[in-house]
């Protein structure tokens, strides 16, 4: 067997890393979407000091 042969463990690691990457991307998307909706709907209120400036 060649030393360059891709072992099953490498496939598993790649699959896990890809899964985590997709979950993180999805999470970023959800945070972005939520922030956009909350800000544009007027749910978000600036702290008083910042609002005065």
């Amino acid at each position, binding site marked *: 067997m060649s030393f360059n042969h891709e072992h099953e463990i490498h496939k598993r690691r790649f699959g896990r890393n890809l899964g985590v990457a997709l979950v993180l991307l999805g999470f970023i998307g959800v945070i972005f979407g*939520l922030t956009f909706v909350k800000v544009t709907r007027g749910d978000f209120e600036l702290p008083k000091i910042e609002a005065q400036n």
Partner: protein
Amino acid sequence: MSDASISTNQTIRPGEAGFGDYFALLKPRVMQLVVFTAAVGLLAAPVPVHPMIAFSSILFIAVGAGASGALNMWWDADIDAIMRRTSKRPIPAGKVESGEALAVGLGLSGLAVMMLGLAANLLAAALLAFTIFFYVVVYSMWLKRSTPQNIVIGGAAGAFPPVIGWVCATGTMSFEPWLMFALIFMWTPPHFWALALFMRSDYDDAGVPMLTVTHGRRATRVHILVYTVILAVLAVATGFMAIGGPLYLAVAIALNILFLRGAIQIWQRDEDMSEADNFAIERKFFRLSLWYLFAHFGAILAEAALRPWGLGGWS
């Protein structure tokens, strides 16, 4: 050591499980039920919710449910290894270490509660936190191994999602979501006791004090019938409440006749009759119970969906 000497069948080292193994910790099938009932609770509420907020809320309720599933697997790894039904779960199968399950469960619990608080409101987040606590501490750690009423009281944890969904939309408590809570709460015991009747050896072997083990199988059959009668009254009565309507009532009457028929058949049978046909009636009742819950919540959703056209409900 060459690659050729590495066995692919060996127990996976910590941190080397696949993504799917970690996902399996979240009990995806239970999450499906949580997503569905939470969505019905949220959409049946009389307050419209922005689709993005609705999606995020249901997502984080599901993540919270999944996290409690991971914590349950961490705690119950010893008995999961004994029971045939659960022996292939990631921890007993040697794919994920129990410490990893604990970390995943705790991490996702905190994240889900925090994010639900930001996406919806603090009351919904507090309810989700309480649900996780109830499922992990009250049910898994305390009741499951100490009382045959484990399923009855523990069933409350699975009944909370529609209440959380409703609170996500309204921000307040009201009577209607508790009807949905009561439906799941009363449905859980007959559903699991039917399972326990035909998976007897599992619970026996693991020493879990299911009703079948502590009070006998005759008592379990009686309990299934009693709970099904109470459930039928509750389910049909819900049809006359604000979340009900003619469509829901029709579905509830039809399904509760079938469900009561199944419960009566289970009550009439003895062990010899059940073993003769490999628990066919009990298995059928268990399968019907899945459709039962799905159809009731589907009908509540349909009533809510028809309301904007003046068709849903009794008005």
